[in-house]
C-alpha cells in the first residue's frame, strides 16, 4: 500500500461528491419541468421528438399505464436488437461497417447478449473485437446502452413522484421522462465524455484492423473501431459492456491513469447525483444526504478491504517465491490480471466502483483477485445495488430498503410506520419485500441449478478447480441477476474456434438461463417498484408529530446500513463461504 494509493481513493470520493451535488439539483429541476440552462438548446428538439413519436407529454399516467409503456418499449428494443445482431453480415450491410466480414453469433448467444443489453446488464459471453461488426456495436449495442440507462432512471423518478405525490394517481409520463433523460442528462455528459476520452488516447475510427511489423520482424494485428462513443455511454449509463473483450483494461479503452479516474467518475456521477435529486424533490435535502451517507460509508469500507487484500498478494504468488511488498520502482501486490498504469489502488477502486453500481466494466481480471479481494465484489453484488447501484436502479433499490428500515424501526418503537408523512401499510411493505427478494432468489436458484447439473458445470473453465469453479458459477448468476455484467471471466457460454463466428456455438444452458435471469431480475423489481409508487401516490400527507421516526439523521443511517447488511448477509453468506471466503482464509492451493 502506498500514500498515493490512499490519496487516489480519498480524492476520488471528494471529487465525486463535489460534482454530484450540483448535478443532482439540476436533475431535480429537469424532472420537475422547471427551466434549466440547457432548455434553450434542447427545448425545440424535445418538442420535435414528441411530435414525431406522437406523444402527448401532458398525458398523466398511473403506475399501470407507466409500466405498460415501459414494457412495450423495452420489448420493441429487444426485438430490434435481436434482428440487428442476427443479420450482421446480411447482403445489404455495407462492407465499411463490417470490414472483417464477421458472421452472426448463434441464436443462444444472441438471446443472452440481447437480454443483457436491454436490461442494462451488459453481461458478455462474446468478445467484441472477434465477433461484432462496427455497425452492430453502433446501432445495436450503443443504442441499448442509452435506452436501458434511460429506462432505469425514469423508474426512479416515478418512484420519487409516488413518494412526494399529494393527490391523485399520476406518476408522470413515461415518454416525457425518457426523452428528457436522454436529451438533458445523458446526451451532454456522454458527448463531452467521449471527446475527453479521445483527447487522452481512446480510439474512434471505422478503419479495418492494422497490421504492424514489429521491431523484431514479427507481425501484429491490432483491432480498431468506434470505441470512445460507446465507452462514454457505457460508463455513464452504468452499462459496462466493453467494446473490446477485456473491457476497460484494454489500452485503447482506458489508456492512462487519468482516463481510469475519469471513467470511474462517469460511472458513479449519475447514481450519486440521483440521491441528491431525491432529496431536492422531497423538499428536504437532508433525506438525500442521509442516504448518500449510508452509501458512501459502505462504498469506502469495500474499497479499503479490496485495496489491502490486493496489496498483500495471492497465495499462488507467495508459493512461487515472489515478494509482493512495494520496492523502489514497483508497487508490488497481486499484479496478476492488473495493468501497470493503474496499479493496485487504481484497480481495486475501479473494481468496487463498478460492482457497487450495475456497471460491469472491469479494468483488471476479477477472477485473479485474491480470495478476500474477490469477496468484495461478491459482497457488493449481495447488497443488490443499494450502494449507489445502477443509474436509477440504485436509487429505487435503496428506497425499497428505506421502506423496509422504516417498517422495522416502526415495529421496534411500536408505532404505525410513517415515511415522509405517509403511513406505510401492509400493501406497500409486501410489495417492497417482494421487490427486494426477486434478485437474490434469481441468483441463488440459478447458481444451484448451474452447479448441480452437468450442462451447468460445462461452463466452468478448465482452470476453475475446487472453490474457484464454484465462485465462477455463483458470480455469473449473481452478476446477471443484479444486472451488473462483470464476470469471473473463465465462465463460458460461447465457444469460438476462429474470429468472426464461423463454426462457433453457444452453451445453451448458460446462455438461456443467464438471459432469463437478467430479464426476470430487471423487470420484476421494476414492476414492484412502480406498484409501490402507485400505492404511495394516493396517500394523504400528515404532518410529522413528536413520535415520528426521522429518516434524515445518523440513527436512521445506521439502521439502514444494518438492514442492508442483514438482508444481504443472511441471504448470501452460506454461498460466499464455499467460494471466495474459503480461498481467502486458508491460502490453500487447489
Amino acid at each position, binding site marked *: 500500500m502506498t500514500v*498515493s494509493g490512499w490519496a487516489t481513493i480519498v480524492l476520488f470520493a471528494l471529487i465525486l461528491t463535489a460534482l454530484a451535488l450540483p448535478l443532482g439539483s439540476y436533475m431535480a429541476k429537469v424532472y420537475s419541468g422547471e427551466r434549466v440552462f440547457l432548455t434553450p438548446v434542447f427545448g425545440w428538439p424535445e418538442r420535435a421528438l414528441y411530435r414525431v413519436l406522437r406523444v402527448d407529454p401532458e398525458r398523466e399516467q398511473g403506475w399501470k399505464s407507466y409500466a405498460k409503456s415501459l414494457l412495450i418499449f423495452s420489448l420493441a428494443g429487444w426485438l430490434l436488437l435481436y434482428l440487428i445482431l442476427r443479420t450482421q453480415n446480411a447482403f445489404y450491410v455495407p462492407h465499411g461497417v463490417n470490414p472483417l466480414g464477421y458472421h452472426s453469433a448463434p441464436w443462444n448467444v444472441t438471446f443472452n447478449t440481447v437480454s443483457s443489453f436491454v436490461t442494462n446488464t451488459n453481461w458478455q459471453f462474446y468478445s467484441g473485437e472477434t465477433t461484432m461488426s462496427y455497425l452492430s456495436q453502433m446501432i445495436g449495442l450503443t443504442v441499448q446502452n442509452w435506452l436501458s440507462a434511460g429506462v432505469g432512471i425514469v423508474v426512479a423518478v416515478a418512484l420519487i413522484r409516488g413518494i412526494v405525490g399529494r393527490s391523485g394517481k399520476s406518476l408522470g409520463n413515461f415518454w416525457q421522462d425518457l426523452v428528457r433523460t436522454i436529451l438533458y442528462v445523458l446526451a451532454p455528459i456522454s*458527448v463531452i465524455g467521449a471527446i475527453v476520452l479521445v483527447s487522452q488516447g481512446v*480510439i474512434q475510427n471505422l478503419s479495418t484492423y492494422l497490421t504492424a511489423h514489429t521491431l523484431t520482424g514479427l507481425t501484429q494485428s491490432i483491432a480498431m473501431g468506434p470505441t470512445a462513443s460507446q465507452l462514454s455511454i457505457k460508463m455513464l449509463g452504468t452499462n459496462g459492456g466493453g467494446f473490446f473483450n477485456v473491457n476497460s483494461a484494454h489500452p485503447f479503452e482506458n489508456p492512462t491513469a487519468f482516463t481510469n479516474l475519469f471513467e470511474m467518475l462517469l460511472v458513479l456521477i449519475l447514481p450519486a447525483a440521483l440521491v441528491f435529486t431525491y432529496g431536492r424533490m422531497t423538499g428536504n435535502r437532508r433525506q438525500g444526504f442521509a442516504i448518500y451517507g449510508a452509501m458512501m460509508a459502505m462504498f469506502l469500507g469495500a474499497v479499503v478491504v479490496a485495496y489491502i487484500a490486493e496489496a498483500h498478494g495471492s497465495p499462488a504468488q507467495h508459493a512461487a517465491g515472489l*515478494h509482493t511488498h512495494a*520496492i*523502489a*520502482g514497483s508497487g508490488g501486490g497481486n499484479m496478476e490480471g492488473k495493468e501497470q498504469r493503474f496499479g493496485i489502488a487504481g484497480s481495486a477502486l475501479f473494481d468496487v466502483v463498478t460492482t457497487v453500481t450495475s456497471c460491469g466494466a472491469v479494468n483488471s481480471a476479477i477472477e485473479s483477485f485474491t480470495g478476500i479481494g474477490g469477496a468484495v465484489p461478491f459482497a457488493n453484488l449481495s447488497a443488490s445495488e443499494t450502494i449507489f447501484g445502477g443509474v436509477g436502479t440504485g436509487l429505487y433499490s435503496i428506497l425499497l430498503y428505506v421502506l423496509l428500515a422504516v417498517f422495522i424501526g416502526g415495529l421496534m418503537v411500536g408505532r404505525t410506520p410513517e415515511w415522509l408523512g405517509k403511513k406505510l401499510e401492509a400493501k406497500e411493505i409486501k410489495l417492497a419485500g417482494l421487490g427486494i427478494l426477486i434478485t437474490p432468489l434469481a441468483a441463488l436458484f440459478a447458481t444451484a441449478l448451474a452447479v448441480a447439473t452437468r450442462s451447468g458445470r460445462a461452463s466452468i*473453465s478448465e482452470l476453475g478447480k475446487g472453490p474457484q469453479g464454484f465462485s465462477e458459477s455463483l458470480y455469473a448468476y449473481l452478476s446477471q441477476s443484479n444486472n451488473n455484467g462483470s464476470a469471473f471471466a473463465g465462465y463460458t457460454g460461447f465457444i469460438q474456434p476462429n474470429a468472426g463466428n464461423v463454426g462457433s456455438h453457444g452453451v445453451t444452458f448458460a446462455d438461456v438461463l443467464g438471459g432469463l435471469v437478467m430479464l426476470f431480475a430487471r423487470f420484476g423489481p421494476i414492476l414492484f417498484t412502480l406498484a409501490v409508487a402507485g400505492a404511495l401516490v394516493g396517500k394523504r400527507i400528515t404532518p410529522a408529530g413528536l413520535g415520528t421516526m426521522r429518516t434524515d439523521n445518523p440513527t436512521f443511517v445506521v439502521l439502514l446500513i444494518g438492514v442492508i447488511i442483514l438482508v444481504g448477509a443472511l441471504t448470501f453468506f452460506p454461498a460466499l463461504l464455499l467460494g471466495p471466503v474459503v480461498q481467502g482464509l486458508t491460502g490453500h492451493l487447489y
Partner: protein
Amino acid sequence: MRRDVVTSILAIVVLTVLLGLVYPLVITGVSQVAFPGNANGQKVYVNGKLVGSKIIGQAFVKPVIAKNGKPEEKEGEVVTEPDPRYFQSRPSATEGGAYNAAASTFSNRGPNDKATEKADAENIKSYLELEKPYDPGLTTAQIPVDAVNTSASNLDPEISPANARIQAHRVAAKRQLALGVVDGLVSKYTASRGLGFSGEPGVNVLELNLALDRLGAGA
C-alpha cells in the same frame, strides 16, 4: 395499448438513428479532425513502415532457428525466444501468440490455483535465466511482480521502472553501451503517476526500444 405499440416502434427507430448513427458518426468526425493521432491508435512508423501502436504492448521476441536453418515449430506455431537486445514486455497469454492485439483476453488465473503458482514459477525461472548473467546479484526476492504476472488485457504497453532497471544491465551489455546511457533512456521514457498521484509510474517498452535503435543508428 395500440398507442404504446405505435410510439414504441417509432421511438426505437428514431432513437436508433439518432443514438446509433448520428451520435457515433459525429464523435468520429470531431475526433478525426481534433485528435487524429489518438483517434487512429497512436500509430508508430519507422522509415514509413508501421511498427505498432504506442499504447499497445508487443512482444520483442525472435523465432528460434533449428539446426536445419529453418524456424522451429511446435504444434503449428513458431517457437520464439526473447531478443536480448531489447527490453522485454510483461508475460502475455493471448491466443495465437503473445500480444495478439486482434483478440485481447484475460488470463483468468485464480489466486489459489496450482496452475497459477506453476506459471509464476516458470516466469521467474525464465526471467532469472535471461537477466542473471548480466546482473549477477539478482535474486528471486528482487524480481518485480509485473515481470512475472500477466496483465489484465495481456496487451500492457508498460513495465515497472524496477523491472526496466534490471533489464538495463542486459541491454547495455548486448548493445555495448554504458549502463548509465541505458538508465538515462529508462528515466526518459518513464511516465509518472497520472495527475501526480494516481496509478503507478510505468516505462513504455516500445518507445524505449525505439530510442535504443535510434541510438544505435546514430552511432
